[in-house]
C-alpha cells in the first residue's frame, strides 16, 4: 500500500476489498481512505494512539483504551479489516469474533474471568465496587452454566450472544 498520502489506485482498492472479505463497497473504501488520511495527520501510514484520542467521541468511550490496543499502528488495510465487522454485510459470526477479540485483548484464544472483570470495570468505572462486579459476573456465569474458573471460547460467545440479536453497524459516509 505504501505511504498513506499517496493516491489509491484501483489495484489498491481491490486488494483492500479482498482483505476485508468484500464487506465494504469500493466507494466506502475510498471514503474510509479519506478518513484515514484525515486522522493520520503526519502521513505516517498508520494512525497513532494520540491521533485516535483526538477524536473526542472516541476518547470518552469507556472501552477506548482496550480498543486502542487493537487499532494502534494499523495500516490502512488492517484498519478497514477491523472496521469490517461493523459493516451491515458482516455475519453475526464476524461480529462475535470482534467482541471476543476485545475481551481477549492479549490474544490467548480464550476469555477468563479476569478478562470479563476487566471489561466490566472499564464499563462501570467507580460506580460499582470490585465485589459487586465479581458477584454479578459470578451469578450470570453460573446461570448460563459456567463457573468462575471456566474459560470462554469463541463458540461459547456465539452461543450466548446469538440470542441477543447483535446490532453492531456503522455507516460509512460516502460523498
Amino acid at each position, binding site marked *: 500500500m505504501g505511504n498513506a498520502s499517496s493516491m489509491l489506485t484501483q489495484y489498491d482498492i481491490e486488494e483492500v476489498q479482498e482483505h476485508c472479505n468484500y464487506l465494504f463497497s469500493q466507494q466506502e473504501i475510498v471514503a474510509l481512505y479519506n478518513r484515514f488520511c484525515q486522522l493520520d495527520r503526519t502521513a505516517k501510514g498508520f494512525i497513532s494512539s494520540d491521533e485516535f484520542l483526538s*477524536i473526542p467521541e472516541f476518547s470518552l468511550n*469507556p472501552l477506548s483504551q482496550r480498543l486502542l490496543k487493537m487499532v494502534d499502528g494499523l495500516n490502512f488495510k488492517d484498519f478497514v479489516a477491523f472496521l469490517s465487522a461493523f459493516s451491515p454485510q458482516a455475519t453475526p459470526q464476524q461480529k462475535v469474533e470482534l467482541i471476543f477479540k476485545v475481551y481477549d485483548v492479549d490474544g490467548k484464544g480464550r476469555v477468563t474471568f479476569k478478562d470479563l472483570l476487566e471489561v466490566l470495570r472499564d464499563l462501570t468505572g467507580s460506580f460499582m465496587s470490585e465485589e459487586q462486579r465479581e458477584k454479578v459476573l459470578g451469578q450470570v456465569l453460573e446461570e448460563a452454566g459456567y463457573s468462575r474458573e471456566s474459560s470462554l471460547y469463541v463458540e461459547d460467545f456465539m452461543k450466548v450472544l446469538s440470542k441477543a440479536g447483535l446490532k453492531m453497524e456503522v455507516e460509512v459516509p460516502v460523498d
Partner: protein
Amino acid sequence: MGGLDSSSMETDLDRPNIEEYLTTETIREVPKKLHLSDLLDISPTLTEAAGAIVDDSFTRCFKSNSPEPWNWNIYLFPLWCLGVVVRYGILFPARVGVLALGWIVFFAAFLPVHFLIRGHDKWRRKIERKLVEMMCSVFVASWTGVIKYHGPRPSRRPQQVFVANHTSMIDFIILEQMTAFAVIMQKHPGWVGFIQKTILESVGCIWFNRTESKDREVVATKIREHTQGVDNNPLLIFPEGTCVNNHYTVMFKKGAFELGCAVCPVAIKYNKIFVDAFWNSKKQSFTTHLAQLMTSWAVVCDVWYLEPQYIRPGEIPIEFAERVRDMISVRAGLKKVPWDGYLKYFRPSPKLTERKQQIFAESVLKRLEEK
C-alpha cells in the same frame, strides 16, 4: 454559575448539558433479569467507538476544503495554466507590492505619531485608529477582498461587546477595516506576535494564553474593565476560541456573555468558490495561509452586523451564549455542533466517560435486584 474554575482543563463550566447530546445507547431496553448475554454484549459501546472512528462531528469542523481537480481536457488545462500564470506571476507580485507600500506608509505615519505626539492622547489615538483601519484595508486589497457589509455599522459606546464566528485571523482584519476594534487574541510567535505587541496594543487589545490555567480569570477582569471604559475601542471577541472551517460553529465560551452588557453578534460567511479562507493552524502557518490567499483570485465574504442582544431575565450566560450562537449560525448558514473548540488542544473531561459508566453501572445494579 459557580466561580471560575482554576483549571482551564476543566471545560465543564463552558458546556451546557453536553450529556444531552451524547447518545445513551449504552443503556439497553430493560427486560428484568440480568443474563450473561447482557454483560458480554458490548456491541452498543463498540458501535459508538467505531462510529466515532469512521466519522465524528468534531473533526468535521476542522476539515479544509480539498482543492478540487479540474477536468484535464484540451481546453481547460491551458486555461488553468494561464490562470496560474496570472495569479502567481501578475497578481501576486502586484499584491505584494501594494502590501509593502502600505506597510511603508503605515509605519512612516504610525511611528512618529506614536512616539512623538505625547500629551494630545485623544488625537494620537484617533490617528492611530485611522491608520490601523487603513492598514487593514491595504491587507484586504492585497487579497482582492470583496466584502459586503450588512447592517448598521458598529458604534463606539461603552457597555457593549461584539462577538463573531471565527474562521481565520483574517476575520479580524476584515472587521477592523470597517471599525477599529480592540480584540482578544491568542499570543502568537513570530512576526505576528511582533505586530501584536506593537501596533495592536495601540487599539487596546487583550492577550490570552490558552495553556495558562489562571489565565481565564485575568482575562475576564481585563474584559470587564475594558467594556466599562468610555473611550475604549469596541471590544471584539471570538467566543469559539479557535478557528473553525466556516461550515460549522462550535460552542461559544460564556466569558463574553456574563459581562452584563449588550452583546452585538456579527456573522461572517466566506464564499468558498473563490478561496477557502479557513486557517487550519495545524496544517499551515499564518504566513503560508496569507500567501495562499494572495495567490487566489479573490476573497469574497459577507459580514452581517446583527441586532444587539441582552441577557433575558432568568437566562444563564451559557443559554445566552447558545442563543447568540444560534442567531449567528442561522444568519451565516452554519451548522451547530455541541463540542468545545478547545478539544482541539485538550482531551475531553473524564467526567463524560464517568457519566456513561454511571448509567451502565446503575442499570446493571438495578437489574441485579430484580430476581
